[in-house]
């Protein structure tokens, strides 16, 4: 099982922490319906490490923790 943490903006009535079966981040994106409609604000982190490209192909294993992180620029 994979643990997924959602930010407030994406929870949409769902629990902030969910568990699900998934082989890759692509599976998570599909199951959460965060595909093409997801905007540029949100990034994935796996086990505390940010994913900056090739996100759908990132393989997951049992016990992994996925977090969706808000990424913006500052001044």
């Amino acid at each position, binding site marked *: 099982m994979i643990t997924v943490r959602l*930010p*407030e*903006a994406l929870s949409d009535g769902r629990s902030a922490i969910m568990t699900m079966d998934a082989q890759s981040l692509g599976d998570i994106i599909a199951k959460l319906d965060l595909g093409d409609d*997801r*905007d*540029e*604000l*949100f*990034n*994935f*982190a796996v086990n*505390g*490490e*940010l*994913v*900056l*490209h*090739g*996100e*759908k192909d990132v393989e997951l294993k049992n016990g992994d923790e996925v977090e969706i*992180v*808000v*990424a*913006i*620029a*500052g*001044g």
Partner: protein
Amino acid sequence: MSIRTRVDALLTRLATEPQFPTQGQTIFVDLARQEVRRAWIPLRIVHALLGGRGVNMFLLHNLLDETLQPIDPEIPLIFGTGILTSMVPSASRGNVTSWSPESRVLMDSNAGDYFPSFMKLNGIDHLVLYGKATRWTLLHFEGDQPKFVDAAPWVGLDNIDLRAKIAEDFHGVEGKDYGLAAITTAGENLVLCSGIMAGPKAIYARGGPGAKMGGLKLKAVLIQGRAADLTTARPHKLRNRDVALKLLNTSVVKNALKKRGTPFLYKPSRMLGAMGTKNNQETTWTDKLDAENIDPYRPGMEGCFACPVNCRPLNDMSNDLNVRHDKYVKGDGPEYVTLGKFGPNVGITEVTQVLRLNNICNDLGLDTASTGSAISWAMELYQRGIITREQTQLDLTWGNYDAIEQLLFMTAKREGFGDVIADSSQAVANGKYPVESLDYLMAVKGLTQSDPHDARILKAFALGLAVATRGMDHLRNRVTLEINAKINDSPDFKAELYGGPVAAEPNSYEGKELAVRRCENIYAVGDSVGMCRFTTKLFNSPSLPGYEEFADQVANVTGIELSKEEIDGIGLNVMGVERLINAKLGVTRADDTLPKRWFEEAIGVGPYKGEKIDRGEFDKMLSRFYEVSNLTDEGLPKPEWRGELEGVLTS
């Protein structure tokens, strides 16, 4: 040639009446002689450089005597307001420009809140200040008419007390009745990392504007009233509604900027292993400083003049019994920069300590980027034994909160070791550190890094920091969207955004020159119209207002029609003129580089462990950047374009 002769010569080439609806005056103020002269910027300059930052560069290029020193009162301090400032949502910004006493290259710094808007609301597009006042002076404009007021009642006051006393003495409310740009005691003491405060937190921060203004013996500029006729060429309010809706419907505004502001960025940076820590010796830090941990101390959000976004978090620690309850128990901020510079970069782990240091810096008028960087540099020198307790009289061990707080007050007064911090990046040149200290200075072109992001991983960030005309600063050209996987994984969309193929991998050097070029252009245009960087297309989102909205509103407000290509060309022109100014100040290709550490030491943690900057690849990327920027191998405009620019600047 004296500044007065230069001003005389320039005035013969300027217009004697407004050139388009809403155009404000350019007012030349000789503080030494208390003389005022007025003109309007000709249309050919506006077509080439628009306004705000762009026209400031035209003025500086004409008035700069590079044989002097930056702090010399013959070097002008130039305030500019964007061509759309105060008239379009989120366009509330303006720039201040000079020769930097801190970096010794171009100084150009941007601020919001209210002062730039009150310039525009009173028909002042540019304010050129020179000559040293014979006594501390407050320049008081009622409408566009200045009075030279003896500033004795306000000298010695820092930001909190100064703004309270000005409100009382001038019977008004800042932001409603007047705008104020003022220096604190740090500026009076010519502290090189001091800024000009444009509000409780808003600061013209970078490059030492506070010291530059202090060198003119000018304590404050107060602009009171709303006297200008800002009748636009065509109706513009309907289009303003589109702009506001676009802003408010963009996810980054709705879900981040309006809720917690920029501290959100702390978390992705530390997760990436790119959070500058202990003067960039390390690159990740505690999750205790993540934005959500500031929530209990955030009573609300504030905003700049007529901006619907309100992205500035306030702070209030009054309910926390573990913190000191004095005037620094509440304040305005912090932004991500301050969180990083006074958190990981100096070894602080407690949110309340960062908030307090933020509030102190706002009061003392210290640029948190430069001051935080100067302190972390000192701490590394202390760690390495290059400087000792004997010199500092303070224990500069990482995370020693009490020493850091004390050092801020000492810096503003130039007392003890504070006098060294007050010299910022110039501490070696001024003989206060040994030369080997430069190996650990995180600066480019004499300016320490603005933001805490360690750019050894993201090569577009690294290139941007290297080529930025004012020094090591992310706000000039950062390709922020490189941090987003969804965009990186969409090659066609990415190519459309940046005008050509840009590698998906953040640590690749391929195509990054295109992305930096595109960002540098649009941000320079944004500064020239007065738009906030946070809400300009490409900085935080591809969906925010950009050239289309800028061109439409420039046409509606001024009647000046510009195509998308022309407006993009203006962005390039601004950079070109800035490079010509820097060339006068001795800047060459060798200065478009990065701190030694980033070439020689690899990232030690995270998904990009082992990453650093390869000198050969960096040099090739720099050459490609020059080529797509129409620059020579030395980083100057190519001859044909240079001729065109010099024609505009000197005709």
